């Protein structure tokens, strides 16, 4: 009886695994045949712009701020304005954007008429999406006692 149950369980799991792998293959076929993907990226965001926007992102997530900023959205907005060239980046451009977001305006509305916002958002997401987020890290005892 137990052997029969195990065999049935194995068959069910095998079928599930088969369809899981089969779906993966279908998805990969779709990906390779779909040619609507980004072909080129010039990443010209300066360290200063990354530092300022990442600070806003991190501090807004670690506080009770009403508006949580996403540094990739902020950078993509600035890039859509300056054509991806941050050589002449001014902090005031970022301050103006933050003021709009703080007043309740939504990023989707602010960027609705920006032709290249989606491109920059996708390109910068590819570059930076693994840089900021939740993590756990070991700390010295003296560090934990401070909390």
């Amino acid at each position, binding site marked *: 009886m137990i052997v029969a149950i195990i065999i049935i*369980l*194995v068959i069910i799991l095998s079928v599930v*695994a088969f369809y899981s792998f089969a779906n993966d293959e279908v998805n990969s076929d779709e990906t390779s045949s*779909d040619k609507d993907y980004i072909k080129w990226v*010039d990443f010209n965001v300066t360290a200063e712009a990354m530092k300022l926007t990442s600070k806003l992102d991190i501090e807004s997530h670690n506080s009770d701020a009403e508006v949580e900023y996403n540094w990739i959205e902020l950078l993509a907005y600035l890039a859509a304005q300056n054509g991806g060239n941050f050589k002449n980046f001014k902090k005031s451009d970022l301050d103006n954007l933050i003021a709009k977001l703080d007043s309740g305006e939504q990023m989707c509305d602010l960027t609705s008429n920006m032709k290249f916002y989606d491109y920059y958002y996708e390109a910068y997401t*590819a570059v930076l999406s693994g*840089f*900021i987020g939740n993590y756990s890290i070991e700390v010295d005892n003296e560090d934990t006692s401070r909390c």
Partner: protein
Amino acid sequence: MVERYGLKAFLPIAKNYSFSHYDDFGNSRSYGFKRVHLGNDLMGSIGTPIVAVESGVIEHLGWNQYGGWRIGIRSFDGKRYYYYAHLRKNHPYAEGIEEGMTVKAGDVIGYLGMTGYSTKENVNNINVPHLHFGMQLIFDESQVDSPNEIWIDVYQIIEFLTQNRSEVYQSNTETKDYSRKYDFMEEGFEGRSLDALIQVLFLLFFVFFLL
């Protein structure tokens, strides 16, 4: 362990080790064929521990005539391929590093050196010891190994990451290998481990069924 939200990518040069660099992306190179430099060279001392900038899976590890002893790591979302080249002669990689394994951001993966520019393995043909660090973007798998590869200028990214460096210590006095001082964990890494466990369980069921 404490939970945090913040910068979780690390500079590839371990904490307390000096380096210098300038924006050399696009400079001309002539070894093998005329081409341009698709990364950023971080000049430092031979043996400087090199750490993974981001967590991911080691896709390539071994000798390449251009990169010498090198490691290529793909991010979990598949969009980024990190390339670390010219690692140390004789002892290029950190203890236990293998192709196919998963590494965490900040893990020691190898040691700075000057190997490369040779079809013969384990040869120091680079003039100045340095880490060649590069990042390739992949929006479609057809871009992985093709004339349409997208390599970006990482100079500003290196500047940005100088604020987050992984501290290391000599964890094996016999092999003189180094390890990270502070352990680290992130969401994607845990999920990856769970996926691997499920795959192993499936495999065991298949084997059992075949028997």
